[in-house]
């Protein structure tokens, strides 16, 4: 969906306010919005709220083979996803140009600046290394996704714990979290991005633009910096020209802001560490604020299910006898079963495009025992009459795939009779629990 264009009067209003050194949400020029960092129950999961912009980061680790030219280094992968939840302008799947740009900045900021030590991720040189992956999902876009995403990514990496590994000669043992405490990643420094928005060809600048200010700005500059006043990333975009003094001024402002932000992140990490040690409940369920009108919470409740068993047996009795499932199955070969004899076709249609489907209703007799059965209130399966004189052969395709069970229906070799016959499909009405098989494949009839 395309973004709704901003109206001219809105644009003029915002610009005029900025020229008067005012911001529409009441902040000062260099003020950040309220920053809140919360962690999930799992290690490496964190949500960052910068004003109304909400970003979720999740870190996971896998053991893989290292790159050929760097056999002793693990890898860090950062993936930024702009979900359609965040803004109707984002489309699922395909990343937009700005999305790719932001992804690159994040990667440069964290990976190329060596914020996380990759040499410590090596297990066996040349064979096994840890590959750490940080997925950043944008949940709500109210401006300045870049900063929120960078805070979320580095905080999640600092929060993450990977399983402990010991190497004894040739043997590599990965300890489960119950055996040995997981080990934190070695984070050297925390690079955080600060975004500056420029208006009137660089004459006015704002820190942490919100959504409307972003729509109106001429260009922006992203400065990625850490506690030690080292610039890790510098990026300017928007097609405007900046003077050297402006760039230096921005980096000085960034020093102050970054120090504040990192202090806040540290506090949040410490608080979470304390809570985990004390055995308190932690996670997003706990961080739902209790005194807001839009939140509600309910304690664990006991459900009285004593009546359930009696009700159940009553229902079964009232339901009456189940129609007997078809028991005339002929096993043709291992894995190939023929059900029914097939009936005569009354349509007198040409054979070439006839397709036939068959529905199996009994789970006990079904070949898909133990697979998922899905029943919804809308039956979507179409039923076609069966071809004349040909048996329906069901062949369970055991290709080892767990997801789909393909049922290929072959037509037997009998000739087609042209006699008219009732073409009732052998479908005993068992309305109790209609079961459908997943992923059925129709095979065109062969003469």
């Amino acid at each position: 969906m395309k973004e709704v264009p901003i109206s001219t009067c809105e644009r003029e209003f915002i610009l005029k306010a900025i020229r008067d050194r005012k911001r529409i949400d009441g902040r000062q020029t260099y003020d950040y919005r309220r920053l809140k960092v919360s962690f999930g129950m799992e290690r490496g999961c964190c949500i960052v709220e910068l004003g109304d912009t909400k970003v979720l980061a999740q870190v996971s680790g896998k053991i893989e083979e290292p790159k050929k030219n760097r056999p002793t280094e693990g890898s860090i992968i950062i993936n930024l996803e702009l979900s359609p939840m965040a803004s109707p302008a984002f489309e699922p799947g395909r990343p937009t140009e700005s999305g790719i740009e932001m992804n690159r900045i994040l990667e440069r900021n964290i990976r190329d600046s060596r914020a996380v030590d990759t040499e410590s991720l090596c297990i066996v040189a040349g064979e096994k290394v840890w590959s750490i992956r940080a997925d950043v999902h944008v949940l709500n876009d109210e401006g300045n996704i870049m900063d929120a995403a960078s805070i979320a990514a580095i905080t999640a990496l600092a929060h993450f714990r990977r399983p402990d590994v010991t190497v004894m000669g040739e043997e590599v043992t990965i300890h489960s979290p119950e055996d040995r405490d997981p080990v934190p990643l070695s984070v050297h420094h925390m690079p955080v991005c600060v975004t500056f928005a420029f208006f009137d060809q660089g004459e006015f600048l704002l820190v942490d633009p919100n959504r409307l200010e972003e729509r109106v700005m001429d260009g922006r500059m992203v400065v990625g910096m850490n506690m030690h006043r080292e610039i890790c990333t510098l990026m300017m975009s928007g097609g405007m020209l900046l003077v050297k003094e402006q760039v230096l001024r921005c980096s000085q402002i960034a020093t102050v802001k970054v120090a504040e932000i990192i202090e806040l992140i540290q506090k949040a990490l410490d608080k979470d560490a304390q809570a985990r040690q004390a055995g308190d409940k932690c996670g997003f369920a706990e961080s739902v604020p209790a005194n807001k009108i839009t939140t509600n919470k309910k304690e664990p409740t006991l459900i009285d299910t004593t009546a359930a068993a009696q009700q159940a047996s009553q229902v079964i009795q009232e339901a009456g006898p189940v129609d007997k499932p078809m028991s005339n199955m002929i096993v043709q070969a291992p894995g190939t079963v023929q059900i029914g004899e097939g009936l005569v076709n009354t349509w007198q249609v040409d054979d070439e495009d006839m397709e036939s489907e068959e529905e199996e209703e009994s789970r006990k007799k079904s070949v898909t025992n133990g697979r998922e059965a899905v029943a919804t209130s809308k039956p979507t399966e179409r039923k076609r009459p069966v071809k004349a004189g040909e048996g329906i052969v069901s062949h369970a395709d055991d290709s080892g795939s767990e997801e789909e069970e393909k049922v290929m229906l072959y037509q037997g070799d009998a000739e087609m009779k042209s006699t008219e016959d009732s073409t009732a499909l052998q479908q005993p009405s068992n309305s109790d629990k209609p079961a459908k098989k997943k992923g059925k494949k129709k095979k065109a009839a062969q003469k």
Partner: protein
Amino acid sequence: MAAEDTLLRSIGCEQNLLSRPDGSANVTQGCAEKLQERLLRNTCESVVLATLHPRAGINIVLQVIQDSGSLLSCCINAACMALMDSAVPMKCLVSAVTCALTEDGQIVLDPDSKQEKESSAVLTFAFDSRESNMITCSTKGCFTPEKYQECLSACGEASKNISSFCRQSVEKRMSKELKVKM
């Protein structure tokens, strides 16, 4: 049945927390993707009065923040709350409950991931809030028809609990507005 087997874990919800989408809900319950998408879609389709919005598309985007069991029922509950929050006209509210059948035939309501893994069957039911009729059912594993009916009744009871929670949340949220109008 033992006390802990029929325990519904604590439920929390937050509504209208995202500013960009028309409606949003964050549902926490306690603590096979395309199929689940289809299920959710069918459930919502049967409940939403789509004829009141011709030529309009309703996008439901779900983000799993944490999966500690009963994922599907949590998704259905979250989708229903978000639809409600965005003021889409619906026939009724949907409340979904998951239950697991252990090896020795015990029914465990609202299982966590460990219980789900050790069970012989996991069944998820979605009920409507007005007459407690079943809207959707999704099962994994083998079980007898008797056990199925038992699970159905047990989940029916639990779903009443969840729909009363939904109702409470909305009442709480609208309480300020109602006061002002009066």
